[in-house]
């Protein structure tokens, strides 16, 4: 019992310790990303200097004790009192922000976290970086493997016919040696016919099965034409949504910024990427290689203080959600008017470590608050199903309230109560009931 008790105590202690260190490090990382990361990096100078072992540097450089914390809170005070700090303030023309809200232990947790970061320059190339490394081979998914199958089929046909020929010759040879008369005129087909005639039942049943199987797979195959669910094209830059929308918590609309106003959500233009990536050029060689592509597109020379060369180049993405030309899907109607969250159709992009793809309907159904749909994502059935279920809020029917849908509901209420009560049988007015299933809403 005692032994057990000790064990329990030790275990608890261990848990407490680990969780404490874990918390501290997590806090440091979070704070760094929230407050510092836009200018500083652990191992690389950016807008601000690299911060790896900065406390040691200050102490070695003869800075006053504690002046580094003063610096973080308000660098001007520190520069006024400490000659070392004053010297640091000349590092760049860009003045550092003041962070009076950071307490000493918080600053320490940031520094601790920074000091725990390995220098990417010393990390062996190929080892997994912390974020966004994509398994090799994924990019190759578009290259067709059909030729292998064709080759196999050709080989097998050759093999079969060769064996068949050998068999025939052997048979003829044996027949010859045994002196039996053989009907040479009988071709393969003839032989098959004879055999089939002798095994009518087997042939009948199996051809029926074959026929039905072909029919069923054929129909299923036809049903899959144009279904693009799961489509995940390769991209010129393997963009990890999980880092941007997830780790860094950037709002979808920061990059896809016409989503509220236009029919298209808009791909971020390169200058939008550069808002952040002017400073952030990656911690690992993989990241740096990817970000270098943005620099190339924007015509940005990151060396020195960084400057635009004026030589721009467009980034040609492969469209993921490519609707046919005759479909008009307005994002702003769904996002700005209906208030639908991006993830309801596009899935939780904060978790999307690889390049974007069309989410499976099963995955979308797991998203909280989503209407559960059965048809594959991005098919017309999928749209229609949702329009059949989704409710359009009646809002208040108060005469003072004069919103768009209030007016529509009022017209219904005042002019055709029967129709309206029919709509309301399931307790809601759906998109479909206001015309959301009509052809010319999306096709024109």
């Amino acid at each position, binding site marked *: 019992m005692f032994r057990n008790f000790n064990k329990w105590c030790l275990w608890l202690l261990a848990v407490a310790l680990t969780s404490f260190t874990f918390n501290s490090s997590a806090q440091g990382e979070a704070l760094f990303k929230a407050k510092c990361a836009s200018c500083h990096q652990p191992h690389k100078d950016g807008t601000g200097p690299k911060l790896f072992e900065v406390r040691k540097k200050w102490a070695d450089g003869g800075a006053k004790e504690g002046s580094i914390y003063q610096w973080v809170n308000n660098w001007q005070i520190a520069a006024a009192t400490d000659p070392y700090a004053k010297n640091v303030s000349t590092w760049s023309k860009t003045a550092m922000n003041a962070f009076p809200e950071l307490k000493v232990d918080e600053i320490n947790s940031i520094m601790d976290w920074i000091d725990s970061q390995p220098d990417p320059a010393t990390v062996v190339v190929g080892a997994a970086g912390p974020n966004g490394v994509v398994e090799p081979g994924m990019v190759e998914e578009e290259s067709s493997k059909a030729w292998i199958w064709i080759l196999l089929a050709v080989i097998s046909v050759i093999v079969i016919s060769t064996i068949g020929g050998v068999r025939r010759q052997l048979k003829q040879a044996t027949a010859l040696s045994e002196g039996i008369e053989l009907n040479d005129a009988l071709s393969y087909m003839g032989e098959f016919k004879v055999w089939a005639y002798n095994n009518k039942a087997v042939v009948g049943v199996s051809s029926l099965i074959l026929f039905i199987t072909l029919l069923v797979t054929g129909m299923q195959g036809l049903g899959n034409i144009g279904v693009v669910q799961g489509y995940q094209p390769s991209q010129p830059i393997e963009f990890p949504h999980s880092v941007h929308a997830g780790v860094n918590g950037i709002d979808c609309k920061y990059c896809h910024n016409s989503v509220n106003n236009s029919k*298209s959500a808009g791909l971020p233009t390169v200058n939008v990427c550069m808002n952040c990536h002017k400073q952030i050029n990656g911690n690992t060689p993989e990241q740096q290689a990817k970000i270098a592509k943005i620099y190339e597109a924007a*015509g940005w020379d990151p060396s020195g203080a960084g400057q635009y060369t004026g030589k721009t180049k467009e980034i040609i993405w*492969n469209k993921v959600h490519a609707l046919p030309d005759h479909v008009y899907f307005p994002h702003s109607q769904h996002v700005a008017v209906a208030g639908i969250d991006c993830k309801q159709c596009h899935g939780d992009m904060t978790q999307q470590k690889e390049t974007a793809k069309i989410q499976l309907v099963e995955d979308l159904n797991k998203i909280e608050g989503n209407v559960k749909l059965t048809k594959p994502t991005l098919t017309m059935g999928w749209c229609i199903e949702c329009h059949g279920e989704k409710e359009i809020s009646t809002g208040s029917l108060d005469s003072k309230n004069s919103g768009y849908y209030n007016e529509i509901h009022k017209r219904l209420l*005042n002019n055709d109560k029967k129709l309206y009560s029919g709509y309301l049988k399931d307790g809601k007015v759906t998109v479909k009931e206001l015309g959301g299933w009509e052809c010319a809403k999306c*096709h*024109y």
Partner: protein
Amino acid sequence: MGMTRKYWKGLDELKETPEFLKSRDEEFPKEMSVEDFLGDDSLAESSTDRRDFLKFLGFSVAAATVAACEAPVVKAIPYVNKPENVMPGMPTWYASTYYDGNSYASIVVKTREGRPIFIKGNKDHGITKGATNPQIIASVLGLYDSARLTTPTKRSDLSTWSAVDKDIIAAIAKVKAKNGKVVLVSNSIISPSTDKAISALSLAVGSGTESNAFEHIQYDAQSYAGIRKANMQSFGESFIPDYDFSKAKTIVSVGADFLNSWLLPTQFAPQYIASRNPDGEWMSRHFQFEANMSVTGSNADERGMIKPSQQANVLAYLLKAFGAPVSGVSSEISAQATKVADQAIKSLKASKGASLVIAGSNNAAVQILANKLNVVLGSYGKTIDVANTINMFKSEDEKMIKLANNVIAGKGPDMILFYGVNPVYTLPNGKAFGEALKKMNNTISFAGHADETASNCEFICPDHHALEAWNDFNPKKSHYAIAQPTIRPLHNTAQAQESMMVWGGVASRGGKDSKVFYDVIFDNWDLTGFQTQTEIADLNTYWGVRVHNSVAEEMTLVPVSVTFNETALSGLSDKLPKTSTLEVEMYQKAGLGIGNQANNPWLQELPDPITKVTWDNYITMNPVEMTGKYATTFDQEHGLNLATITVNGKSVTLPVYPTPGQTPGTVGVALGYGRGENQEKIGRAAFQTKEYGGYKEDENGKLMPIGANAFAFLGSENGTMSYSAPASIKQEEGMYIIAATQIHHTVMGRHSIVRETTLETYKNKDKEAYNPSYTLQKLDENGHHVEAPMSEFDLWDAHPVENIGHRWAMTIDLNSCIGCGSCLIACQSENNVPVVGKDEVRRGREMHWIRIDRYFASDEEAAIGTRKDKDTFSFDKAEIAAENPKVIHMPMMCQHCNHAPCETVCPVAATTHSNEGLNQMTYNRCIGTRYCANNCPYKVRRFNWFNYPSYKKFTEINPAQDDLGRMVLNPDVTVRTRGVMEKCSFCVQRIQAGKLVAKKEDRPVVDGDVTTACSDACPANAIIVGDWNDVNSIVRSSSADKRSYQALEEVGVKPNMWYKTKVRNEDNKELDLLQVEPVAHGSHGNGGHEEKAHH
């Protein structure tokens, strides 16, 4: 009782020729055999039998299916740096101004992702009040013309700007060194900033001072120099006054087509329509005396037929009636014209001081008579404004004629520059001028194409397209406007003004994003605009507001009074045009105008408002005169007789088109055709094409221009160009096939389509007299037969559209519609309507979603069943009436029936009804059975017989067949493919967009949120669009107007469109007698009467 006039769309319908009866009964002409259709003789002889065909078919279906399994990879390319005011997927609108030397309008340009794709009138600012014309709307297509020059050329070799500049500057220096002369020929320059650029060039040539070394000749293809000259003689000052048609209670136009071409139709049309409101305090009375049946004449209340040379006679006749006879000027006119003139006198006397007389002639003597008459009538200061003069049309015909003669004689100046003009095409002696020009050096053209003149010049320094350039304009004395670029120059072109400044040595080339001329405009507006006003304190704000509106608000001018110099009237008789037994009048068509957009397939395919002919010009002649000599009816298989007109030894051969209303003894020929005679590269669509694609070639292998150039017939009288001439005509062997849109869609005796009344009847009688509602019989609860309105009869359950949700509706006022065709071009531009070419139009396969039906009406004819003499009446007697008929223009498109017959017959539910009242067409469902088109009572559905954007037959004409031309397509509208039906969608893309705007602002849809392209374009505001369920909407009250009716109401399809009865301010006793209020009577409805009596 019933309707009153007989309407017909063509003489063949009136006479019920066998060809007509045959074609009338066939919705889709099927005269073409399979061999013709395939167009390849070898195919007919091939050994492919039916089974092979089925095998191929099966294989291709399977192949297509397999191919469709793989979704193509679509690329998405975002901007590197997004321009601030561009939102992908959303249009950006820019206010600007259109001026091409002939038409002027304040416009708004719609751009998508930086591409201009649609032009409409600016309803908020400018003198044109939102009015445009087909040419202005279609000009956006010219931007993407693949025949545009992409770089400067020297002797047709591609060159660079630096090389060309060097050569030209050296040439100028040489000319200067030998005291030579430089001439700039331009169209009328109304841009104050361009004047600065020209004076920079002039100073450079004239060694620091303006001198004789530089001459600037302004020359317009359509000259109005006669008006300026007449005013010089009448009032001592050369000007074109401003006319205000909205104030004129009586309008007498003697040969002036002021709704289509005369001076400033974009300003006059809205003014005219404002005076034509039958519900207003007064409604103007419009008399037209003319030779050709013009757009204006077709809208007139009374129309007198005169020869072009008789314009003076009419004016003299009127002057005589007002006690101011002019000695030496004959006042003799035909009996028919006299009748009209007498009425005009009556009306003018009644509305003295509020009347307006205008004359179309470019002969100063005729214009002096018009001036005198206006003085007598007291029009000056009332309907004619002498203070706010029109700056356009400063053509110096005399100087131009002299220059041309000098050049032809080899005595030309040392250097000529051509800016905005094409004299080789537009001068009567253009051919000789061109030949002489070719031999000259130092000839420079700023033309965007290597056109007739430019191709004979040493240098072509292509100017920007108007949509790529900054400019400013001063069309009227008190009115200034700005044109701003809506796209970065597509090609390596340079603004002409910049070139002039560079050669003048005051600027250096600014490259693609040049601000050279912009700076001139900005400084000019700062100096003369900003610094003379006090309203806005900040220059940038001032400039921003001006560019945003594209105009400066009008300044008020001190009224100017004029005194008529009576000596101007002396000796007029010698200067008047001479009468001849046959006179030809040259006129401008609504589509092609003076021909500067002859390469624009939209305009070529625009049916002429009167004749409904596409892709050709022709000789118009009164069918009465043609009888016995020429074919007065035609079918599109055999065409029309050819004839040669000769004027002054120059001849053209054209088909003779029977045009009711053409004055006997006259013929008309449209200008603007026959471009590219010498194979100039003026654009793909400017030449005749073969039946199955490719260009037609003459015996020498040359491309054949479309139509013939009538500018050759121009003459000059007293130093001004004249647009009519004595002529002789000779019938030629052979027939010419012509493509008209009118004989495919027939009225079939259903007179409930168009309704018309007189102002007298409208004011004094009940609605039932002129706009009777249809009733049918039903049994009431007591088992009695009673009359009930159409709305009570339903075969099907009604679609729940009334008062629920939206109900998109439209009213079209037949009283306002002038038939100009702007709506058609706007619709084509907005909805990616394909161009199909002459051959397909001939087969009745034009694709226009909206057409303008033109119905002729005769004065004497009464509605069937209502004539007292119906026993003795026969259609043949109506022939005489065809000589000078009344005309009604009626826009016709999908009526969006709530009981649509097309919807019930579609086997695949590709056309369905929306709960907003729209008849929806779902292209991706349509399998092309064409049942719907067969079932449509309005014949507005169009079938895609071919894949117009890719089939080789349409390579030369369809703009969507090249990469540049495709840029004009509206990305919000599907480009339809072969085998599907299409029709007016009520601009559903705009409805969706309009609703979305309201939804985002969380407010109900209000008037103005949703407009259609046609209603946007209408210069007369004849088309009103809105949500009928909104009880406050204009369309709701308009549809309830007593003039409103629904076309073919009796068939019970319940359209969402209403037409409004045309009211003519005419004396028409016959019509008044026929339109009587119904007496309550027994058991027969009006509809029953008509239908029964017909057949």
